[in-house]
């Protein structure tokens, strides 16, 4: 921005810088990589959910022409250690199973061959003898399991990974003194993103220097290389990551998983580059991207005035066979557990269990979307129970605009907001009275209309304390989550921005150009943006927890300020004036206040690069214009174990209101979304077009979660949804036109007032769409407590006796292990 503060580029929908390359098919993805002598890997996967591996016979596979190596779990373990895990105590997982398999699809043997087809043919020749073990196929079985049914007996004779029970505020008093209690049981299904590109890696190993070169779509390369190196029993300096374009992550590609490690082990064994790309079946079964799989018993305490006074959640979460991110997704939920409401008391208990399923990974929302769903459902149930208007009830309980900065009961901070303003804007856009009239007109018809509402917070800019702050004695209490950039202005005055995170389908080049353009007052189309891998050296966390735009903006502002200071110093020296008298105008020209000197970036750059002896000796005028900046989290704090306060870890808090008009066909038991309004407050929007894309994409995924998606397993733990014909995702037919608008309360804590907005679409859509469905079926007394609402489930609900329609509290949960702070 100019020295007068006027904004020229931030807030504009400029075209994406990434698109020419992507649209022309010129962006390089992992599977585009072809190296000389490269060979291909395939795996033999477990066909049992839980079994001992008795014997592995590889001779027939090894004898197949074109096969280079056949590697068992024990052989892979000679060159690799356990995969990184945040669990405490750790849960051991290897890139290939050793001795025991714990879910269907777990890789057991890897085959490397001249082509993927030969590798797959050879994999089919590998014979594995299994001895079946008792299968733990659901969370209730997990709570009871003992003996051979225990997945990780070294952690004790139980399948409970951990139990945490925390109370904040006077929660028992809130319930004891309440006028109303709304209590429901909810079931959130195991779903995931389906990025177009599956997880994959090409790895080359150079024996002479003992160095690995990674071409991988694993996304947090800079932060992850430590864990990856440890898993490969080498030093991080022995790894080089080459940045790649990534075909979508939505959380699923953030961590260090078996794919990259396995490819590296195989490359080292074969002394040839190895490519390992998951096929869709492998991705569905073990892409480490299954999201939360939870049951909630949740209660809301309400006083006589309809004010929410306390929240209780007793959660069981089916984490699957491993536990690599520990309770991170519940830490996440704790960031905004009371949502946009004024409640001060919370009781939160989580029991994390092991089952014979794929382990959970992050998926857009990372557990926060489930907490939002449960809270908004309780508010809808309260409106029904109290015969209150759901809009008015929300407004009565909202935090007021003067409440910010607001400290939540758990200790997190909300920076700014105007929730009533957002809701009013959404109701205005929807013309809510028209919607109500349309609904009334179709009342009693076989096709009903329902109006759904959700008002949710969108915590953004994560800090990593959420992975361990529930622990008394954390193993690994990391607290850094930096983002770095380097900017240099070349000898012709062109800014070149280097970022240290890959492009994973967001718009990092566009955002970096727009933000740099704003600070340097140049046209973003003239700015060059490139990517550095690990060899570039600067530490960055990259996209995760809706942090990237905010963190990038902070880093760019820091680098630009350093650059501008030097540019002004050069100009001031040239003109013999004071630095503070040099100003920049909106065209990127530098001038002094009074006497009419003008210089462009190009002229100043030329002076700085080529005429060193025109300037005084010393650091101030070293040759060239370049600056690097590492931006740390703007205001995170550590948890306080004494008070149970979780600290500030997600303080840049946006807000969204979604209003949905849905039509339910009571004869066909189908749901169609007729109209959709989404108003988001993400602070200062950098690029409305790309922001709207994030919101619409998140809503599309929410439609999948509410209406279509679920990973199904049978009672023997067999995965039944192994293709996109079994695991249904929304298509263009299910996703309506979505009307998006922005309402801005700038963050006082971030560069330019930006907030994160990567997850809000999904965070708000799940409760809003569900709310519309049971609003349409209010006359039938139907209240949705379980997703997905597929036609067959809706059919059953419509035909169930009225008493079974989940209007009342669902049956009590089975006995839980007694609460302890930790296991």
């Amino acid at each position, binding site marked *: 921005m100019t020295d007068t503060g006027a904004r020229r580029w931030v807030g504009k929908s400029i075209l994406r810088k990434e698109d020419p390359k992507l649209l022309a098919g010129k962006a390089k993805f992992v599977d585009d990589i072809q190296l000389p002598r490269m060979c291909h890997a395939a795996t033999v*996967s477990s066909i049992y959910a839980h079994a001992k591996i008795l014997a592995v016979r590889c001779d027939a596979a090894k004898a197949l022409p074109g096969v280079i190596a056949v590697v068992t779990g024990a052989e892979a373990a000679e060159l690799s250690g356990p995969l990184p895990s945040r669990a405490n105590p750790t849960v051991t997982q290897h890139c290939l199973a050793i001795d025991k398999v714990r879910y269907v699809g777990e890789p057991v043997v890897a085959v490397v061959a001249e082509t993927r087809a030969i590798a797959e043919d050879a994999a089919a020749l590998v014979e594995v003898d299994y001895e079946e073990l008792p299968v733990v196929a659901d969370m209730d079985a997990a709570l009871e399991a003992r003996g051979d049914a225990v997945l990780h007996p070294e952690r004790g004779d139980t399948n409970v990974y951990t139990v945490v029970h925390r109370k904040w505020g006077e929660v028992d008093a809130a319930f004891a003194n309440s006028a109303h209690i709304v209590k429901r049981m909810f079931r959130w299904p195991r779903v995931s993103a389906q990025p177009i590109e599956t997880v994959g890696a090409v790895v080359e190993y150079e024996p002479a220097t003992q160095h690995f070169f990674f071409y991988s779509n694993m996304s947090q390369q800079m932060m992850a290389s430590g864990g990856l190196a440890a898993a490969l029993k080498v030093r991080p300096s022995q790894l080089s990551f080459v940045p790649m374009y990534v075909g979508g992550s939505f959380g699923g590609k953030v961590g260090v998983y078996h794919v990259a490690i396995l490819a590296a082990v195989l490359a080292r064994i074969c002394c040839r580059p190895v490519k390992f790309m998951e096929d869709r079946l492998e991705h569905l079964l073990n892409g480490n991207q299954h999201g939360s799989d939870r049951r909630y018993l949740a209660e809301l305490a309400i006083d006589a005035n309809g004010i929410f006074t306390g929240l209780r959640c007793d959660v069981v979460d089916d984490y699957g066979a491993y536990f690599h991110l520990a309770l991170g997704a519940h830490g996440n939920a704790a960031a905004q557990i009371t949502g946009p409401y004024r409640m001060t008391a919370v009781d939160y208990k989580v029991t994390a269990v092991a089952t014979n399923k794929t382990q959970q990974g992050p998926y857009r929302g990372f557990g926060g979307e489930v907490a939002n769903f449960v809270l908004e459902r309780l508010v809808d149930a309260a409106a029904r129970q109290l015969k209150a208007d759901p809009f008015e009830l929300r407004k009565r309980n909202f935090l007021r605009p003067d409440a910010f900065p607001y400290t939540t009961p758990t200790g997190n901070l909300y920076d700014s907001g105007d929730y009533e303003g957002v809701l009013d804007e959404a109701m205005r856009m929807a013309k809510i009275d028209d919607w109500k009239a349309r609904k009334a007109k179709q009342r009693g018809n076989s096709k009903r209309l329902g109006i759904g509402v959700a008002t949710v917070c969108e915590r953004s800019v994560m800090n990593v304390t959420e992975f361990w702050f529930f622990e008394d004695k954390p193993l690994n209490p990391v607290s850094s989550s930096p983002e770095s950039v380097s900017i240099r202005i070349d000898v012709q005055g062109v800014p070149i921005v280097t970022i240290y995170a890959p492009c994973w389908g967001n718009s990092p080049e566009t955002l970096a150009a727009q933000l740099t353009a704003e600070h340097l007052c140049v046209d973003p189309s003239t700015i060059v943006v490139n990517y550095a891998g690990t060899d570039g050296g600067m530490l960055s966390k990259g996209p995760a927890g809706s942090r990237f735009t905010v963190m990038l903006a902070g880093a760019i502002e820091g680098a630009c300020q350093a650059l501008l200071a030097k540019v002004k110093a050069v100009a001031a020296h040239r003109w013999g004036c004071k630095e503070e008298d040099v100003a920049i105008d909106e065209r990127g020209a530098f001038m002094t206040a009074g006497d009419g000197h003008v210089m462009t970036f190009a002229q100043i750059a030329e002076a700085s690069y080529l005429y060193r002896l025109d300037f005084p000796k010393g650091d101030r005028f070293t040759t060239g214009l370049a600056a690097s900046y590492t931006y740390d989290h703007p205001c995170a704090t550590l948890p306080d174990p004494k008070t149970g306060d979780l600290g500030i870890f997600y303080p840049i808090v946006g807000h969204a209101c979604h209003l949905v008009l849905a039509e339910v066909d009571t004869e066909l038991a189908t749901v169609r979304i007729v109209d959709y309004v989404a108003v988001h407050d993400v602070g200062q929007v950098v690029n409305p077009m790309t922001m709207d894309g994030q919101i619409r994409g998140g809503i599309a995924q929410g439609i999948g979660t509410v209406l279509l998606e679920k990973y199904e397993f049978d009672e023997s733990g067999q995965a039944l949804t192994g293709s996109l014909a079994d695991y249904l995702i929304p298509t263009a037919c299910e996703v309506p036109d979505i009307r998006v608008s922005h309402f801005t309360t700038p963050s006082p804590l971030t560069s330019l007032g930006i907030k994160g907005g990567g997850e809000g679409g999904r965070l708000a859509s799940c409760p809003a769409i569900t709310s519309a469905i049971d609003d349409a079926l209010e006359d039938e007394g139907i209240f949705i407590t379980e997703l997905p609402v597929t036609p067959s489930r809706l059919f059953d609900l419509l035909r169930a006796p009225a008493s079974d329609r989940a209007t009342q509290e669902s049956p009590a949960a089975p006995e839980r292990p007694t609460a302890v702070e930790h296991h």
Partner: protein
Amino acid sequence: MQLTNQQVLPVEQSEVWAALNDIPLLQKCIPGCDTMTSIGPDTYEVGLLAAIGPVRARFKGKLFLEDIQPPNSYSLKFEGQGGAAGHGKGGAKVWLQSGGPSETVLHYSVSATVGGKLAQIGSRLVDMAAEKMAADFFAAFKVAVREKHPSAHTASQGGSEASEAAAGTQGEGVWQRLRSWFNRIFSSNKTT
């Protein structure tokens, strides 16, 4: 997977019972079965090529006959491994009901579970595939029984018609439907 059905065979019960214990005959009738070798009392090793949807594999497995009540019923248990394609196991009960010297009703009830790729990408198709295999088996079984007992009536009525029609609708197709149509015409001509 659960499958319960019946078949009417145009021979007397003892002949059906004999056929049900005739291992080479059974092997010939089981679709894709290329080996069926006795490896112990009432225990057989079976090899067969099977396809369920996109999964096609050679299965090796064992079959155990149990609770044998000649000439009325037996139960069988089976388990098979198809390597990377997965595995299947289950059981069946077969019992016979005499309908006279030229008619026996064969009742069968099968339950099976599958695992691995068969479940992952075939679970939608397992029931249909099982019904088709059963239909194929009984079509061949009838032909084999008839060949063994040429005196038997060519016509079959009631249950068999229904099941043949059912088999026809599952895509074995035109031939099945055509044959059952011809059977109907032929038998109605005879009775009038």
